[in-house]
């Protein structure tokens, strides 16, 4: 018995309203791990391509947008992106797919795990986080394909690639994105538990949001109202930062990136505190 971690399940619920959600989450990190693994296993069970789908989604979208923008309407010339459009789109689509699929998993995370929510105790934060965790694994797999894509364009087209130290900034970009996703994901999961409409609205909103972000087109600098709207969107600096670090070899612009970081942290603080405060109602209201 001595080797068993006795802290598990230990909680004096006399002061539970004041209990530290971060410490509680840390104590249950192994549940987060195994729910993430479960999420991935379920997603790719009885599937021939398996985790390969993580690559297929952004890759096929890249092909579609490349066709549309370079063949069908040929808007690419006016974009001034200094790299092959396919690469530009892929670098935007991979983090965006992570964002969209992580949030999509979060929205349903509480409701689809109803039997866990009503029958087992663990910090409820684990559920949206495990959805984001599973999406993160997909993100890593899809991201690794980028190396092949870069190599292709470097060796087989006039465009050439140079690796810069700025790539070291990439983990910070990922962390900021995860922070934002966690905040939004918790809010969405909680909202969907009380009102199932959220799931429906989310499906539409995430599509619109993608076109309101510089995922498949560069941020215009002409100061039009549309450009200002896109710039206000906190995902815009993050997607831009991926391109800056990976391809352009420069640090992201400080102002917009700081703005995205602040918004992310505020979203997390607000989302998590709402989630934690409402958590005790989940089992009753689900």
């Amino acid at each position: 018995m001595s080797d068993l971690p006795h802290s598990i399940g230990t909680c004096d619920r006399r002061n539970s309203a004041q209990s530290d959600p971060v410490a509680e989450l840390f104590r249950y990190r192994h549940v987060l791990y195994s729910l993430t693994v479960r999420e991935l296993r379920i997603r790719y069970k009885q599937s021939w391509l398996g985790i390969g789908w993580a690559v297929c989604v952004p890759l096929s979208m890249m092909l579609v947008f490349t066709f549309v923008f370079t063949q069908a309407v040929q808007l690419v010339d006016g974009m001034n992106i200094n790299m092959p459009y396919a690469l530009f789109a892929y670098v935007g689509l991979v983090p965006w797919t992570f964002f969209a699929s992580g949030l999509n998993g979060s929205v349903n995370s509480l409701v689809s795990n109803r039997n866990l929510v009503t029958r087992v105790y663990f910090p409820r934060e684990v559920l949206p986080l495990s959805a984001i965790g599973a999406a993160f694994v997909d993100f890593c797999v899809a991201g690794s394909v980028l190396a092949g894509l870069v190599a292709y364009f470097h060796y087989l087209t006039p465009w050439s690639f140079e690796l810069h130290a700025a790539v070291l900034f990439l983990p910070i970009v990922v962390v900021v994105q995860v922070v934002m996703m966690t905040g939004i994901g918790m809010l969405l999961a909680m909202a969907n538990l009380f009102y199932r409409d959220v799931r429906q609205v989310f499906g539409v909103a995430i599509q619109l949001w993608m076109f309101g972000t510089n995922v498949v087109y560069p941020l215009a600098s002409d100061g039009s109202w549309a450009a200002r709207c896109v710039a206000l969107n906190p995902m815009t600096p993050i997607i831009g930062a991926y391109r800056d670090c990976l391809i352009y070899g420069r640090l992201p612009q400080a102002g917009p990136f700081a703005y995205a970081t602040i918004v992310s942290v505020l979203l997390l603080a607000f989302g998590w505190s709402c989630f934690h405060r409402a958590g005790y109602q989940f089992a009753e209201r689900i």
Partner: protein
Amino acid sequence: MKAGMLKVEQVSKRFERGAGHDTLADLIADGFRRLLGRGRKQSNPDASPDSFWALDGVSFEVHPGEAVGLIGPNGAGKSTALKLIAGIMRPEKGWIETRGRLTALIEIGAGFHGDLTGRENVYMNASILGMRKAEIDRKLDAIIDFSGVEAFIDTPVKRYSSGMQTRLGFSVAAHVQPDILIVDEVLSVGDVMFRQRCIQRMRELVDGGALLLFVTHHLEQMQAFCSRCLVVDGGRLIFDGGTAQAVGRYIDALKHQQGYLTGCTEKQIARVTEFCLRDEHGKEVLVADAVRPLDVDVAFELDRSVANLAVEVDVRQEVGTVLLNFASVRDETAFDAPAGKGRVTLSLPSLPLAGGQYFWRVLLRDGDSGDVIADTDYRYSSVVEDGGRTTGVLCLPHTWTHAEEVPHESNVKLLRATA
């Protein structure tokens, strides 16, 4: 080993009736109603008819090495109490203190996913129940062995029978080594052999110093397993003490809850209005002593007079054969009963049954026509306490004597011969 601890103090929990949320359709309908001046009145939530107290000021404490049963009619608040203790819900008032690793078996195999194999589900379920990977690795063989589904452990559990899923689920839970184990009516599935093993495993945990809180409707199981028992009814703790008395209080609660005493079907001209057991002092008892005299008291109401009233009383366990049958007609006894209320008493020198729960049926017949005029079916229930005298079905008064036997001369010779 650090001992677990469970303390529940003045805990109350309120639930809302109805859907508990507004849909857009509700909001629109409500808006129209308000427009027409028939708006819903907002009332104080405490007094609102849409909410009720599922638990109301419940306090108890369970100590290490103690197995405590929790019984009560359906909807009494048992599961709510367990969910509060497990931390799944939070009480409106009062507080709950737990110390040690807590495992709540509110549903076996929580989080089992049909597409995952037995082995994958074991890992997942065990980690939700609080085990680390290294610990699961170590115990995996024991878990699979205990479940008895080795042959299918790498098959997705959607192909399992429900019994197999339950066995695997319990098997995981049984290996968690909790300090506090909470079990909610989960052992009713699985076959008899498996149930026995579960009980044995729970016994081991309790003997090892764990504390157990156990909800079941199998009163036999409860009596065999728990020395102490809590009875809840209507959200209140109405009894805390010995299991036999607790079961008696539970049955009493059932009577009050379900209008237990209306033994009336159409066309029957009589109703049994009261059924009770009395000890030799005439005091009503809910727990009958197997070796003491007992009166069975039946009160009834007749719509018309019956000149030749015959009474029959049957006793059996929850299911199975009738163990005892008393029929006034076979004793060549009949009563001339006028219309209105009446009472018949059956006196027994003892009730020679083994300890447990029994069900009683009362039949009234019109002796002239032979028609059944009232039949309560096995609606009444009582508990017999035999003081642990037997593990059989009946408990008859008996004595033992012992005498030393002098060896027979010829036997001794025979023994010598063979040696």
